[in-house]
């Protein structure tokens, strides 16, 4: 290891990821199997093996780059990279860690805004009723993304198939759900 990096041993990204996720970044030897199997590799600015390499450098500038990357939001957590990694590195867990930080630190890539809006609309629906209301999610997402016309033609077809419910289903203990949300994602 280079001298210039030694001061990072305890508070560098490698140590942070190990502490938060239990995953050891140093185990990656850049075989590239994760990137080869990744179904969305062509959509990403950094495919998974490059994400691993950038983390290994412990360079704060590159860490910043990853937190602002599109790749972490494009990742569909299909677990293919983890499944094929010869060192069994849980890359999706690292992606979750990077996403959570990216959101907290307000570093979400502009191209990923709609993906994040979708996740937020999803969780708001769950927070409110305890279960996902697909209609509620769709309307909420459209209001946030202003992508108003996409899928409009689907609604009547879904209704014809009995697949669209107009009244959301509330669980009995919605207070419990609100309490869980306020102690986790909505923690001040």
């Amino acid at each position, binding site marked *: 290891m280079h001298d210039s990096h030694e001061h990072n041993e305890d508070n560098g990204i490698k140590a942070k990821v190990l502490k938060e996720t239990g995953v050891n970044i140093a185990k990656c030897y850049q075989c590239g199997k994760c990137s080869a199997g990744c179904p969305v590799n062509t959509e990403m600015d950094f495919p998974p093996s490059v994400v691993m390499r950038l983390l290994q450098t412990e360079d704060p500038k590159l860490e910043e780059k990853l937190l602002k990357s599109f790749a972490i939001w494009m990742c569909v957590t299909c*677990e293919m990279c983890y499944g094929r990694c010869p060192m069994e590195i849980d890359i999706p867990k690292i992606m979750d860690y990077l996403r*959570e930080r990216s959101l907290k630190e307000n570093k979400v890539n502009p191209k990923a805004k709609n993906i*994040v809006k*979708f*996740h937020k609309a999803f*969780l708001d629906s*769950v927070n409110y009723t305890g279960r996902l209301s697909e209609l509620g999610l769709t309307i909420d997402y459209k209001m946030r993304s202003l992508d108003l016309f996409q899928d409009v033609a689907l609604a009547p077809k879904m209704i014809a198939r009995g697949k669209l419910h107009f009244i959301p289903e509330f669980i*009995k203990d919605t207070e419990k759900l609100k309490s*869980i949300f306020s102690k986790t994602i909505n923690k001040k």
Partner: protein
Amino acid sequence: MKIGLYPGCSLKGGSREYKESVVAMAKAFDIQLEEIPDWNCCGATAAHNLSHELSLSLPARNLSLAEQAGFEILVVPCAACYSRLTIVQHELNEDKNLKKKVSDIIEMPYNGTVKILNVIQFLQQFIIDKLPEKIVKPFDYKVACYYGCLLVRPHGILKFDRPEDPQTMDAAMKVIGAEAIDWAFKVECCGAGLSMSRTDVVGKLSGRIVKDAYDRGAEAIIVACPMCHSNLDMRRPEINKAIGENIEIPVIYITQAIGMAVGIDEEELGLQRHFVPVNLPKKELKTQMEEK
């Protein structure tokens, strides 16, 4: 033995035919599935993408409710819910401090003792042995069994089937008379949670899956996940646009295929709810065509 059911939100909404067919099939084998009282959403992709603690707590409440209800076994037909519940059970069993922390967040006792089964494990454990004698209408079609991601990965935690080229669905389909083809996209991703936010990507990824199944002669794609189903079925216009073809093979839940074979009414199995119509060639007609 009381067997619990965690349907999850999809099976209550857009994928209601999956739950209808699971319940109808179980009933045909005299098995009563009991829903977890007051269950909540597992948080799905959204929760674990945005908050690790939330992604642990939402499934933990369900598992705790299942324990309280006295279920030894919990059937979770949705592959995504199955993945979340199993991963959470694994993470909490591995780490006592985390278990205590999550138990404090949900303010409920949590032991982690419920046995979680996906729909294929449920079939293997309770149905497959009794299946041959119940068949009234063999499902005599060439099928591509599509497992997707979350039924088989991550293997170290789920410990189910093989992570590449799995065989359990193929084996079950053979029991009801189908020919399960070898194909390349059994465990590839359909695009999953990007269905609404990046429909173009779903068209591309699901397109490769549908095209490979069709090109290798499959007459139907068999699935065990509501997200795989809605992407391959409801997103067919986007798929056909992405691949520049017009492929019309239906996507059928494994529980629907088994239900058809044991003579359950097609409407009870929810076949009419699909976007791509389930127009399988009539058997007599098929034999005639083959003779020609």
